[in-house]
């Protein structure tokens, strides 16, 4: 076998991971709004709202426009915009006397646009209260200014998301751990079936090697997820359904290794652990793919389907994310390959030593 044939996929994996590290860390985020204050206001006043931006150019672009947006139909334009620095800006709003809603209060988001940065949104930025309501008058006030002629942001950039900020890049490092784990466990399932059907005499050892790498990825996924959760959801463990299911998945495969160490007879051990491995993967299916879809989760795409859609993974992110998944999966198979070959050499050495004696 030529060198290229053996090493091409390992090289590919390394290059893809390298690419995901470089592109995932070096591409900047789109400009966004980190915080606005104050967050509560009443109608019929003049409000100065200070806005703190991220990666923004408020001073160098002279054409900042700021809207207070109640819904897609209702919004008002700031009467004056005063940039203090590239990342600080004060927008003055004449809040009309009535809101266009029958309720006593409404949540507004703030939309900011200029020619360098393009549009940025801070959702639920301002909570407005009114004493009495007059929907018709409110309509008249809030319908006047419409959001028009938004600029587009320039360059290849990752989306800016409220609490995530720069940690959106963890999508390329935390999530591929899970994908890699599932692919590795899938691989181990295939080899246990092959072993039990008698198609692969080394299937049981390959199963163990793949499970070893998969378990490493699973534990790393848990660990990195906990770090990420601490700084976005404010606690290491929030009993989120996916966190729990992932912990159970790692437990199942830890049990595989317990079982493997508990049986001494080699033939019996290989057969029994392969059978358990198939069973384990089958019971993993409801844990990873059915129950998370039935329960609310903090993870993106919660409730209905835990898929990646919309703003959580836009097209720019896909260009880094999918290569990262493939790259880490290949690295995982590489680790498993190394482990498997080491074990094979160990067995060969043992038989050689026994023959010599």
């Amino acid at each position, binding site marked *: 076998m030529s060198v290229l044939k053996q090493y091409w996929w390992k090289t590919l994996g390394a290059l893809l991971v390298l690419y995901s590290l470089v592109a995932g860390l070096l591409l900047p985020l789109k400009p966004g709004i980190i915080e606005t204050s104050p967050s509560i206001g009443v109608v019929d006043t003049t409000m100065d709202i200070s806005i703190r931006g991220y990666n923004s150019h408020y001073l160098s672009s002279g054409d900042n426009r700021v809207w207070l947006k109640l819904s897609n139909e209702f919004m008002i334009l700031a009467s004056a915009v005063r940039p203090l620095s590239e990342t600080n800006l004060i927008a003055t709003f004449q809040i009309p006397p009535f809101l266009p809603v029958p309720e006593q209060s409404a949540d507004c988001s703030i939309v900011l646009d200029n020619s360098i940065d393009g549009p940025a949104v801070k959702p639920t930025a301002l909570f407005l209260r009114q004493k009495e309501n007059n929907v018709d008058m409110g309509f008249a006030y809030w319908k006047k200014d419409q959001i028009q002629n938004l600029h587009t942001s320039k360059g290849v950039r990752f989306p800016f998301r409220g609490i995530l900020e720069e940690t959106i890049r963890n999508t390329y490092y935390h999530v591929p751990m899970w994908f890699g784990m599932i692919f590795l466990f899938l691989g181990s399932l295939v080899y246990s079936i092959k072993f039990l059907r008698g198609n692969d005499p080394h299937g049981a050892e390959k199963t163990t090697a793949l499970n070893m790498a998969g378990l490493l990825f699973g534990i790393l996924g848990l660990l990195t997820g906990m770090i990420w959760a601490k700084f976005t959801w404010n606690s290491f463990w929030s009993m989120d359904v996916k966190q729990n299911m992932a912990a159970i998945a790692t437990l*199942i495969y830890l049990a595989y290794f317990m079982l493997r160490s508990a049986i001494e007879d080699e033939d019996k051990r290989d057969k029994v652990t392969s*059978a358990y491995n198939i069973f384990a993967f089958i019971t993993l*299916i*409801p844990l990873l793919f059915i*129950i998370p879809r039935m329960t609310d989760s903090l993870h993106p795409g919660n409730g209905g389907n835990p898929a990646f859609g919309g703003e959580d993974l836009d097209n720019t992110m896909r260009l880094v994310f999918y290569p990262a998944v493939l790259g880490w999966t290949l690295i995982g198979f590489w680790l498993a390959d190394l482990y498997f070959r080491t074990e094979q050499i160990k067995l060969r050495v043992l038989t050689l030593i026994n023959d010599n004696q």
Partner: protein
Amino acid sequence: MLSTTQQIVNLIRLYWALEGRSRQLLSGVLLYVVAIVLVTSYIFGSPDGETWLALFWVILLFASVNTGVLSFMQESGGRRWYYFQLAGPLAVYLAKAIHLFTLLVVVGILTAGLMSVLYGFPVQNPLLLLYAALLATSGLSLLFAFMSAIASQSGNASTLTTIIGFPLVIGLSLLAGKIARGSLMVGLSAVDLQWDIIMLIALNMLIGGMGILLFNYIWRD
């Protein structure tokens, strides 16, 4: 060789005959249930609906582990060889699962009865609880018939069954628990939870199918 159905029937008859002689399995489990219910009643007094269900569930779960372990422990050495002569692996697995299932149904009825006497019966919709309990016990017995067979291949079967079995039953018990919680609400019927029930049936079939396919490999020595 006899047909598989005939083998299963023979094996189950044999199990009950053994059970009738030693009464080791059933009496052990029953003693465990009565003790647990009494102890918890002393500690907690009378629990609310959710706790009632949780208690019921935990008792059933541990009973299934214990029965599974005990039933395969009895079969060490000679007797195991005897079964091997008597019936094929499919028959042994199914007979074991059915035997476990009947034992667990007895345990479940007894637990529910004892708990209703001591704590009252908070369930609004007994039919839903019945579905959940039946589907869960069938899944548990299919799973533990397999797991205890695996564990019996090693030295200390009882610890190993718990270790390798518990992570696997979590999916099953979460699904069944969701249906069981529905039984606490007034006016909820099986139609409202049909997807969960279908999912649980599918999971049962999956576990059973896997067990039937794989038992062959772990049973042959």
